[in-house]
């Protein structure tokens, strides 16, 4: 596969705005190695979130996509899978609720956006090994300090991996990352594998 072929199939996505940009534009920008630097894109949190996720998705799935496209009697399934992941990523870019960070001075209101937290979960999943993260949902009152929440994750699992062991590794990794970067009280992390890919 040539470098030119390593584009994400962003053309299949609707042209919704991301601070005035589209997923297609961002895919092209990523193709160019984010060079020359576009200050408008780089100054948008939503665009940077999308770029970060698209880059990881690209690294995780392109080789597998190409292998399956070469051998699969239905290669369009692969494109549909990637398109579905991109749609999920786009849907999770909205800032969402505020996730507070405590400080003894009540004048200081420190928060992470829900989108930033979801991105942490996605990154943790995608770097677990043998997993491509799908949807991530935070269930519960994330805006109230100390309130227990549940993290729901859907993911594709690499063919041949043990589902139980992979889910345990994913849970531990997500719990570690959230403990490092947030003050969320995680009551439960639910993992559902809804697809299998050939690594």
């Amino acid at each position, binding site marked *: 596969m040539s470098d030119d072929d390593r584009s994400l199939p962003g053309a299949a996505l609707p042209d919704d705005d991301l601070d005035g940009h589209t997923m297609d534009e961002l895919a092209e920008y990523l193709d160019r190695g984010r060079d020359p630097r576009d200050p408008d894109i780089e100054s948008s*949190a939503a665009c940077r979130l999308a770029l970060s996720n698209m880059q990881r998705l690209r690294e995780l799935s392109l080789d597998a996509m190409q292998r399956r496209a070469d051998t699969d009697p239905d290669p369009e399934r692969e494109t549909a899978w990637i398109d579905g992941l991109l749609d999920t990523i786009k849907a999770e870019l909205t800032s969402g609720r505020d996730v507070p960070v405590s400080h003894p001075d009540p004048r200081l209101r420190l*928060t992470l956006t829900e989108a930033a937290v979801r991105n942490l979960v996605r990154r943790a999943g995608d770097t677990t090994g043998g997993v491509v993260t799908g949807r991530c949902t935070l269930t519960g009152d994330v805006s109230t300090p100390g309130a227990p929440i549940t993290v729901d994750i859907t993911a594709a699992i690499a063919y041949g991996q043990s589902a139980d062991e992979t889910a345990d590794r994913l849970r531990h990794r997500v719990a570690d990352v959230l403990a490092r970067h947030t003050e969320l009280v995680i009551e439960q992390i639910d993992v559902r594998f809804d697809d299998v890919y050939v690594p």
Partner: protein
Amino acid sequence: MAEDQELSRRLTDTARTTDGVRHVFPASSIVQVAADAVAVQFELREPDTLVDVDRDGGAVRITAEIAVDGARPATDTVREVGERIRSVVDAEPGPRPDTISVVVRLVEDAARR
């Protein structure tokens, strides 16, 4: 107000130079952001008034929105940004801000920009 623009410039620099901060996003009004974007385009410089200083009805609110580096806990970085901004604004003459909001919009991979 020129004084507030100067304060915003100093606060933006304060946020930018805090350990673990990768980027400061515009938290200002749309009009201000658009004006700054035009200035940036013509002068080929980084926008430098990204922290919002809002005075309304006697209340003063400061808002900063940032991307942070995943190599450092986001909680540590956001606290330090808030405290550094507080030390700058509390040293200013006039009323102290009622709220200083710092929002982490993105935790970036340690190995990426």
